C-alpha cells in the first residue's frame, strides 16, 4: 500500500465515521462530535494533498536555500480551518447548553417534537416564550 492510499483512506474514513455520527445518532452532543470528526477528515485530506515524498517541512533553516519542500499552502489553509472549526464548535456547545436548559433533553427527535409544540402554542404576534427561566 502506498502512503497516499493510506492517507486518503484515513481521511475518508474519518469523514464517513463523522457523517454517520451526525446522521444516525440521536444525541445532539454526539452529532457535534461527528462534526468534529468530519472536519478532521477534511483537514487531513488537505494536508495529504500537499504532501510530497522526501520533501522537507516548509521552514527555512539558517543559511540554507529552499530545497524540495512539501506544499505550504494547504497547511496554511488547514490552520485556518482548524480555528474556524473551533469557533463553530464553541457556538454549537453554547446553543446545546441553552437547548438543554429549555427542554431538559438533548435527544434530537424529542427536541424537534418540543420545538414543534412550542411553535404551535405561540399565538399570533407572540415571539414565543422567553427561555430565560430554567425549565
Amino acid at each position, binding site marked *: *500500500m*502506498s*502512503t497516499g492510499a*493510506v*492517507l486518503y*483512506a*484515513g481521511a475518508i*474514513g*474519518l469523514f464517513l*465515521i*463523522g457523517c*454517520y*455520527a451526525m446522521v444516525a*445518532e440521536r*444525541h445532539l*452532543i*454526539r452529532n*457535534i*462530535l*461527528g462534526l*468534529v*470528526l468530519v472536519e*478532521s477528515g477534511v*483537514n*487531513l485530506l488537505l*494536508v*495529504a494533498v500537499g*504532501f510530497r515524498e522526501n*520533501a*522537507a*517541512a*516548509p*521552514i527555512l533553516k539558517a543559511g540554507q536555500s529552499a530545497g524540495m*519542500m*512539501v506544499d505550504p499552502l494547504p*497547511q496554511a489553509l*488547514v*490552520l485556518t480551518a*482548524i*480555528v474556524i472549526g*473551533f469557533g463553530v*464548535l*464553541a457556538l454549537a*456547545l453554547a446553543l*446545546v*447548553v441553552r437547548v*438543554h436548559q429549555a427542554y431538559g*433533553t*438533548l*435527544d434530537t427527535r*424529542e427536541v424537534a417534537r418540543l420545538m414543534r409544540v412550542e411553535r404551535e402554542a405561540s399565538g399570533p404576534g407572540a415571539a414565543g416564550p422567553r427561555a430565560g427561566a430554567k425549565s
Partner: protein
Amino acid sequence: MTLLITLITGVMLLAAIAVVVLRGLLAAVAALAAVSLALSVLFVLLRAPDVALAEAAVGAGLSGVLLALTLRRVGLWPGGPAREDEQ
C-alpha cells in the same frame, strides 16, 4: 515511514470508531481527543509542524476541555450533581 503512517492512521480510525461506539459521553470525548492527538502526530510525519501544533493545542486540548465542561454543565458528567443518562 509508510509503515508508521499506516500504524498511526489505524490508531486514529480505531479511536474514531470508539467515539461512535462508546456509550459514555465522557469516554467518547476522550476518544475524540485521542483522534486529535493521533492526527497531530500524523501531521508531524507529513512535515506540517505548524498544523500539528495547532491541532494538538486546539483540537486535542481546548476542544476536549470545552466539550468536557459542557458535559459538566448540562449534567451529563458521570457523578455530576444532576446526573442524567442518555435516553
